[in-house]
């Protein structure tokens, strides 16, 4: 089947663009970049056509990487139904976004650099998805983290961009630390890292056997997932990550990379099923994140920030689904979210492009006539995310909320409120952007074909994508949760979505004066939310400052300067002393040195002759 070809194509593209891109024409660069991703997309299609819907994972072993004692880690790729869904989402959406980026980045510097990083990201993402053991997963995990860092700091001349990149990288380090600990624990307890082996071992355990270390593994994995997928408490990096170019936000920070955590937890579902406590934590974190982020999103004025918080909140939804044990629902929402959130970001990018760099909602408005296509596609995404039936968001969100209701009603209600807020802030952004009168001073222009064609495709997907019945497809892996008998839950969530839209319409189209009044009356709450609950400041005080001070005083002055330097200098002095003695043997004649060597060898041979092993 040559699965290795799937990640190989983007990697080749990365090599070509990375090494020769500087000398290649922009056309050539974009052809290489998009072509390579298209090739791997086609190869994915071929693979899936060949495999169909495999009952068991189809595995390919390439090279045994690490062999130490019983532990034997190989470089092997595996494809099962979950992987197929992920592959399709990653390569498909990735390809669309690549095409979009050709138009969006057309006037930017470092064109080839951007696409080299982009391809590299695709490579690592595919490794992450295809890898058949935790170590390969971890390799891809770190790789996408690196690419995300590189791309957030793409405009490395601006300070805020590099700061955002560093923030993302450091926050992710925390998560990755948890993940690596989890991997060590798994290797320790199962003696293997292969998914197949580990999960079969877990499966064989009786369900009531719930050793603490499984919970530990699950929680550590959760830390990693929370870092990568921007969950509480590690979500702070994602909003800042919007400093990168918009296609990056769409591909990495909305569609694919940030969902890696969801994928990872789903992948290790067997482990979680043996630790209800960890599942519960996942659900709580998910719902809390969903609610918090949505509430922050209500008042942001930067269009990309709004969508960023929306991403965090939607990821919260997915975690809620996982926590409720509805893994397939989580993956379902992952897919639909990939569609409409990528669309939202690309649309936002197209708006920004039209306003040549303007991101503040307060300077937009009335763009509906100026950039109709973007407007239309964005509204498609809006209805999709707001969960308006029969569009994609409705199906997945309904699946999640249904599962949540089965799991615990209050989570369901929180989810409903979140759905309401989601609909509200998305449409707030859309109305502010497209309705009313233009408040900016640029001259908006519709985006070129290469940019709106992907928008159109994604719009179609986010409208109709809900009919791809992922839960049914994944049923052999994750049995469906029992359908909740009473379907009033569905009506409630739909009503919440519609209500949100209506309220947004009321506030920002019908009676634009109301929001200010409201913000004035609820001033304290408004400031609290507007400043994102002062979480960043909190972290600054509680985490960053002590670390910095501690390392400055204790580590640097104390340990480094006195201890380590002292030791090093001491060793140096010792060596100089010995050398002073030995230097008399150094007469600078190579042949004499050779003589010493021969003498030594003779000594060895004689030793061998009399007490050596040569008998």
């Amino acid at each position, binding site marked *: 089947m040559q699965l290795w070809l799937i990640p190989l194509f983007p990697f080749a593209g990365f090599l070509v663009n990375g090494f020769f891109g500087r000398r290649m024409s922009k056309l050539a660069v974009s052809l290489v970049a998009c072509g390579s991703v298209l090739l791997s997309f086609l190869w994915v299609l071929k693979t899936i056509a060949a495999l169909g819907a495999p009952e068991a994972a189809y595995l390919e072993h390439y090279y045994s990487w690490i062999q130490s004692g019983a532990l034997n880690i190989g470089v092997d790729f595996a494809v099962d139904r979950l992987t197929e869904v992920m592959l399709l989402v990653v390569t498909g959406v990735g390809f669309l976004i690549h095409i979009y980026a050709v138009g969006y980045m057309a006037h930017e510097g470092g064109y080839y650099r951007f696409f080299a990083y982009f391809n590299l990201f695709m490579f690592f993402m595919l490794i992450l998805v295809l890898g058949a053991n935790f170590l390969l997963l971890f390799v891809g995990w770190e790789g996408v983290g690196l690419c995300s860092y590189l791309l957030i700091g793409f405009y490395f001349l601006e300070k805020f961009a590099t700061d955002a990149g560093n923030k993302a990288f450091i926050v992710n380090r925390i998560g990755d630390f948890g993940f690596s600990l989890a991997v060590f624990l798994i290797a320790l307890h199962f003696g293997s890292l292969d998914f197949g082996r580990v999960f079969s071992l877990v499966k064989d355990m009786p369900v009531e056997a719930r050793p603490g270390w499984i919970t530990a593994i699950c929680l550590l994995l959760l830390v990693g997932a929370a870092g990568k997928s921007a969950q509480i408490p590690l979500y702070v990096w994602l909003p800042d990550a919007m400093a990168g170019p918009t296609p990056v936000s769409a591909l990495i920070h909305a569609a694919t990379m940030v969902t890696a955590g969801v994928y990872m937890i789903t992948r290790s579902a067997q482990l979680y099923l043996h630790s209800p406590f960890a599942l519960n934590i996942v659900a709580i974190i998910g719902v809390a994140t969903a609610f918090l982020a949505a509430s922050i999103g209500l008042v942001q004025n930067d269009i990309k920030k709004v969508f960023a918080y929306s991403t965090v909140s939607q990821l919260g939804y997915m975690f809620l689904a996982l926590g409720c044990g509805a893994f397939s629902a989580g993956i379902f929402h992952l897919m639909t979210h990939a569609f409409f959130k990528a669309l939202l970001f690309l649309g936002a990018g197209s708006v920004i492009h039209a306003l040549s760099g303007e991101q503040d909602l307060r300077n937009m408005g009335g763009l509906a006539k100026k950039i109709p296509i973007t407007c239309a596609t964005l509204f498609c995404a809006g209805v999709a995310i707001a969960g308006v039936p029969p569009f994609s968001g409705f199906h997945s969100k309904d699946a999640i909320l249904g599962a949540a209701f089965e799991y615990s009603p209050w989570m369901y209600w929180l989810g409903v409120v979140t759905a309401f807020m989601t609909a509200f802030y998305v449409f707030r952004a859309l109305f502010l952007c497209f309705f009313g009168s233009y408040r900016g001073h640029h001259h908006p222009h519709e985006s070129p074909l290469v940019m709106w064609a992907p928008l159109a495709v994604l719009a179609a997907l986010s409208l109709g994508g809900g009919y791809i019945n992922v839960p049914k497809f994944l049923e052999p892996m994750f049995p469906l949760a029992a359908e909740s008998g009473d379907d009033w839950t569905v009506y409630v969530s739909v009503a919440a979505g519609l209500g949100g839209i209506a309220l947004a319409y009321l506030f920002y189209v019908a009676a634009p004066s109301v929001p200010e009044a409201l913000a004035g009356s609820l001033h304290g709450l408004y400031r609290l939310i507007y400043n994102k609950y002062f979480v960043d400041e909190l972290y600054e005080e509680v985490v960053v400052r002590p670390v910095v001070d501690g390392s400055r005083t204790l580590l640097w002055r104390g340990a480094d300067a006195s201890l380590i330097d002292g030791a090093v200098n001491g060793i140096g002095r010792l060596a100089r002393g010995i050398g002073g003695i030995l230097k008399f043997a*150094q*007469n*600078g*004649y*190579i*042949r004499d040195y*050779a*003589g010493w060597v*021969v003498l030594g060898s003779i000594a060895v041979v004689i030793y061998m002759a009399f007490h050596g092993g040569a008998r």
Partner: protein
Amino acid sequence: MPPLPAVIHGPAPLSWYLILSAVLFALGAAGFLFRRNIITVFMSIELMLNAVNLSFIAFSYKLGRNDGHIFSFFVMVVAAAEAAVGLAIILTVFKNRQTLEIDEVSSLKN
């Protein structure tokens, strides 16, 4: 030792190969010690490498596995790299000092 004709006609003992390799190695060492021309010294190093290769091959014959062949293959590769760099160094030395006398290149002293 069996009588001579049998020795001549029969197969050669493995130890002969090993002894030959020892002799060649010693010759290489001797060349290193006696010759003063850098290139010749270099070549005696190659001679030693060859001797070692011979014993590799002989032993892998004894063990019935071809790992020894692979080792000597690597030895050849390394020797090639070494020859490239070493000869380049010799060229530079000659450019600098117009001599190949190894004893006159003794700036390591002090």
